[in-house]
């Protein structure tokens, strides 16, 4: 393919001050690399937060009674939850479904009493969806059908001064408002690494919650999905398949504080990326403007020969595109290794946290933050660099087309 003379002119113009062009490309590359790294890190961090939240028992989405989004009461139940669970499991992309039922209660051992939220679970699926109880260092997790047993957190055990096989008395208010009590034998003590979380863990079989509260069924079906990016599709699909007695809510509705935290992070990222790109933009614009000023006579001559404004703009934009393309490649060369490292090894913030608790809003976070990494970085690098360079070419181009050919040539004479 033979390049047009205009394009060759743009290329050769960039080559005539090679050092300046190289510095400009370096600037674009470095700016792009910084932006890629920040975007990938924050994206990965957001995904980790969501994963942590989902695996802390909240799930990616939940099927709840239709009134729940309005009232958010633990007393509402999905009576036919087993049938609904079948429907949810059939949706493509949903990997795990588990039922939950919650009730407020008092645990007592001797003279010690602690108030907790008792979580009724299906032991067959709970451990797969909930990282808080995935490993039980002392004892074991609940078994299906084994009624009158419980798994509690280490802090709670210490407060009640109980050990494995001790029996706790649990008291809850039943559906009529009457006190309902039962004995629960401790089969496992969970340790999450967070004292706060270990103070609230109290899992029992779903059937125990049903008998204690007198309310049949599960309060919700918590589902984990393969790729949270497809949540909207799954929610829409479930909305179509389930009757009006049910509502489907996403993690953003379940944990609005986490959703807003992720949004705040995204906003900060946009701000930082914008600042970096504005710095790059101004740098390139300055270099391009200097190039136009140096070539003022050339533009005057080209204008005298009959070159129109549109072509002059195209030449300047072509120069911007060439800078942008090389800058993108350099941005990828600089940015990909660092991004890949952080995506695979992560950045360990444990030394920064020290002994501080790693749980926030009942979510257990990992101290090693990992970024995201994927093919999406390549188009993003080109998008960022080309946007900055093409936009930064426009003012110099406007300056070029305003060059008065007669005045420029008069200087020459």
């Amino acid at each position, binding site marked *: 393919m033979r390049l047009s*003379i205009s394009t060759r002119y743009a290329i050769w113009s960039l080559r005539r001050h090679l050092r300046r062009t190289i510095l400009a490309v370096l600037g674009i590359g470095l700016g792009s690399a910084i932006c890629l790294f920040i975007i990938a890190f924050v994206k990965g961090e957001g995904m980790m937060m969501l994963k942590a939240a989902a695996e802390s028992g909240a799930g990616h989405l939940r099927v709840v009674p239709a009134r729940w989004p309005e009232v958010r009461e633990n007393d509402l139940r999905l009576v036919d939850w087993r049938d609904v669970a079948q429907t949810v499991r059939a949706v493509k992309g949903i990997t795990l479904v588990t039922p939950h039922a919650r009730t407020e209660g008092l645990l007592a051992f001797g003279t010690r009493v602690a108030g907790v939220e008792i979580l009724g679970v299906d032991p067959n699926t709970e451990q797969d969806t909930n990282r808080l109880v995935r490993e039980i260092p002392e004892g074991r997790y609940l078994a299906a059908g084994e009624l009158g047993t419980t798994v509690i957190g280490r802090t709670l055990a210490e407060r009640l001064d109980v050990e494995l096989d001790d029996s706790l008395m649990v008291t809850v208010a039943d559906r009529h408002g009457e006190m309902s009590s039962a004995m629960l034998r401790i089969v496992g003590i969970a340790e999450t690494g967070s004292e706060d979380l270990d103070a609230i863990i109290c899992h029992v079989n779903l059937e125990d919650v049903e008998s204690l509260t007198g309310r049949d069924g599960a309060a919700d079906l918590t589902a984990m999905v393969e790729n949270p990016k497809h949540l909207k599709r799954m929610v829409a699909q479930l909305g179509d398949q389930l009757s009006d007695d049910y509502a489907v809510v996403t993690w953003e509705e379940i944990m609005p504080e986490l959703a807003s935290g992720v949004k705040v992070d995204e906003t900060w990222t946009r701000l930082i990326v914008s600042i970096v790109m504005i710095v790059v933009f101004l740098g390139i614009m300055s270099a391009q403007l200097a190039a136009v000023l140096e070539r003022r006579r050339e533009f005057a001559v080209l204008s005298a*020969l009959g070159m129109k404004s549109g072509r002059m703009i195209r030449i300047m934009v072509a120069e911007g595109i060439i800078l942008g393309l090389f800058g993108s490649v350099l941005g990828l060369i600089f940015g990909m290794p660092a991004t890949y490292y952080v995506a695979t090894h992560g950045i360990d913030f444990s030394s920064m946290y020290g002994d501080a608790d790693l749980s926030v809003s009942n979510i257990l976070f990992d101290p090693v933050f990992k970024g995201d990494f994927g093919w999406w970085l390549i188009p993003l690098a080109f998008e960022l660099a080309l946007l900055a360079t093409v936009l930064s070419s426009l003012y110099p181009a406007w300056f070029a087309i305003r060059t008065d050919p007669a005045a420029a040539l008069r200087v020459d004479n």
Partner: protein
Amino acid sequence: MTNAALITAQDVMKVYDTGRVEVRALRGVTLDVHKGDLLAIVGPSGSGKTTFLNLIGALDVATAGRLNVLDRDVSALSKRQRADLRLHSLGFVFQAYNLVPVLTARENVEFVLELQGVGAQRNKQAMEILEQLGLEEFADRRPNELSGGQQQRVAVARAVASKPQLVLADEPTANLDGENAEILLTMMRRLNKDHGITFVFSTHDPRVVAHARRVVTLVDGRVAKDETKTPVPLSDGSGESKENAPCGTSAPEKPKGRSSWPCGLWFLPV
């Protein structure tokens, strides 16, 4: 003069407002330039020669008066229309050559053809123009690899590439030595004689005046004298310059690889 007027200037004035002071560069120039003219505009520095050339080249517009170039009122044209006029009907030769430094001689010529919208043929056409003007050996050289005289001849090739009716040359020989000035002027004379291209020079150079058929003297922005004269004869090949050899004759030393001196420029209208 029986030929049609390509340029009609009536009481043309140009005032530059520098903010603090008004400079009256032209104070009422009235002049006709006819097809086939070989016109030299002379005068002392500041007399308005370059200003007048810029006006008829549609690079600038007059402050007052009427200026028609190729039957078009330049003052009434938009910026785009003036660019079109320059692109399709006018050629320019500048004192400082003003070739695009990053492009080769061929690309400089080709650039004008590209601006005119010539497609795939433009590379071939540019080469043919250079060949017809005896410049093919410089085709792939950049301006910094050419002497001043060679650059100015490439500039002439660029100026005529768009097949203009009128070529405006601002002090074209000012930076050239005697031999190169003669080569250049002979080339232009030949283009004028054989192809009817009208040339308007702005010059101080007596060598240019010697080749002109008409000399207009500007003084203080006004036409002080307008005289028609007989130019020096075109060299017949026994002159001081090889390039002075007439079309189709054998010169004592022919350019390398040529059987005769550059003859007709087939691509130009006769």
